[in-house]
């Protein structure tokens, strides 16, 4: 069962946060993230997450909390989730001079992101696009793990069983993330782990993609060495339970 509040945290801190990575490797996204003057958008979700996206010099940065020039107020997590699904358009209550960015550039950015995250089969035949799309999915899932571990009822149960420390999550030769757990609270950092206590490494992009799409059986991949898990295994065991919840929310 999907919890709307947990979904709102995923949409904020995994889906929208993915714009940071998009602007790192997509040229058009970089252009769009280079407004003449810096622009920022705050998402204020009633009884839900709050965050601000800033666009400057080709970079997108997400920070927790409000303070952006364009202010979007969503009455509830449900309303925010409907906005992410494109069903609802919120009315801005500030930053009216920057509305052009919101209506045009930001919309184009999210359209580009959608092309990577909901890629069609033809596009995926291009190897470079395939790897970029898989990288975007990797970061989305890595961030969603923490959002679920901190907000979903069953996710919180799993997170509470993860011993303190950090987990390295990687696609070999590709993107890396560090999931830091302390007292059952999870934080995803989209960079290589410095001193991990446990590792979950996907052997290549194809294996990772197959797992994300549900076309590769994880236990068989593990058995034949296409996924490597090592270190303090109880961390990975419990993380895998949260991973199974990711599919519930993002499928």
């Amino acid at each position, binding site marked *: 069962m999907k919890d709307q509040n947990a979904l709102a945290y995923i949409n904020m801190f995994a889906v929208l946060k993915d714009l940071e990575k998009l602007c790192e490797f997509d040229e058009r996204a970089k252009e769009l993230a280079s407004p003449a003057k810096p622009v920022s958008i705050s998402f204020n979700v009633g009884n839900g997450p709050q965050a601000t996206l800033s666009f400057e010099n080709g970079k997108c940065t997400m920070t927790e909390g409000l303070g952006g020039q364009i202010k979007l107020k969503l009455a509830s997590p449900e309303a925010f989730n409907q906005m992410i699904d494109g069903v609802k358009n919120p009315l801005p209550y500030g930053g009216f001079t920057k509305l052009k960015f919101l209506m045009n550039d930001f919309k184009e950015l999210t359209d580009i992101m959608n092309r990577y995250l909901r890629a069609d089969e033809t596009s995926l035949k291009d190897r470079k696009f395939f790897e970029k799309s898989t990288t975007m999915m990797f970061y989305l899932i890595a961030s969603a793990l923490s959002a679920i571990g901190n907000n979903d009822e*069953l*996710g919180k*149960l*799993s997170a509470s*069983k993860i011993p303190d*420390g950090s987990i390295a999550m990687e696609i070999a030769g590709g993107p890396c993330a560090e999931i830091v757990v302390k007292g059952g609270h999870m934080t995803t950092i989209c960079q290589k782990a410095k001193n*991990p*206590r*446990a590792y979950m490494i996907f052997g290549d992009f194809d294996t990772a993609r197959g797992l994300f799409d549900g076309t590769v*059986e994880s*236990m*068989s991949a*593990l*058995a*034949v*060495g296409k996924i*490597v*898990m*090592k*270190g*303090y*295994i*109880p961390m990975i065991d419990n993380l895998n*339970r949260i991973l*199974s*919840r990711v599919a519930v929310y993002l499928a």
Partner: protein
Amino acid sequence: MNTYTYPKNDEMLQRASKVIPAGVYGHLGPAEGCFIPISAYPKFCDHAKGAYFWDLDGNRFIDYMCAYGPNILGYCDDDVDAAAKAQMDVANCTTSPSYKMVEFAELLTDTVSMADWAFFAKNGGDVTTLAMLTARAATGKKKIIFVKGYYHGVAQWTQRADAPWVLKGEVENNLMVDFNDIAGLKKIIEENKDDIACFISTPYMHGNFVDNVLPADGYWQAVRKLCTDNGIVLIIDDVRCGFRLDVAGSDHYYGFEADMLCLCKGIANGYNVSALCGKDFLKPVVSSITYTGSYWMSAVPFAAGIASINKMKALGGGAKHLELGRRVCDGVAKAAKENGVNLSISGEPCMFYMIIKDDDSLLLHQEWIAEVVKRGVFMTNHHNHFTNLALSDEDINYTAEVADEAFKVMTKNHPEIYKK
């Protein structure tokens, strides 16, 4: 020493992964078995005898996992196999069950101190589940007290709510207490008064990833009294320990009496039978529960079980296992000390559990075990080990030599930790 390679094993695993979920699912497989790295481990057995098995590449292993327990006398024991073959020539899976079932039940109730009756099934999980059902039926109560870090099989009632295949309602009556925590147990009983069906535990805490813990003095006697005073059925899951500590049951070994005792791995030297043993007052209840299976009354495992239990008794039973385990542990501990490795060995010696304490990621432990396995001694990273009565002095000495060489390889790879 030469180290092993596994080309035929790996080829077979590739074949397996195409037609069998996970290639090899469950605890014998690379994933759940924590084969880290997978390349260090054999995946398939070709044949086995005594303390050894040989893999598809012809590599021989001294086996300290013993099929995770069932190999208690030694693989393909001549006496047990002869009894099984003789029964196979007569009858096995038949419409009327063989009288061997009665003989086996009589032998078990004569052997296991607390047992007034025996109910047979196939796996440990069959009988832990039956024990729980019996306790609920006998008391009319629903809650179950578990010890933290427990393992009582894979049925839903033994799992957590965050397992994707488990419904919240299936586990909402589960209560948890620490092992050896009498005060905690009293508190839980007080807080859930008149609603607790049973307390289920292994005889000692043999969980994974932690040092195993033996019962404190007076612990089991205090648990027994609390259960009796509060109408709680005391279930001992002796699936792993059973017959390795004491053929009379592990409750007997620790000086108390369970209401029900779950047996499996140690009772028939690898032939597939499990048993729930119980006290008389539960016999009318268990007999009223609809619980059966297609192969639960097959005669071959009963014949094998009779031969196995008689041989266990003749060879010295649990005392012999404990002695063998102590010698294995002493040899490995000595090698660790000589190489400057902080190796913790815990639990009962015949089911020793090991952790290298020099890092909290267990990566060093995983590296060491991989080197041990590649040299022909089969151990696992994060599960207790098992002895069998076919272990020879030569095997035990060789195990210590392998442990020593593996420590040397591991420590040499980590000069940042193991400075000379």
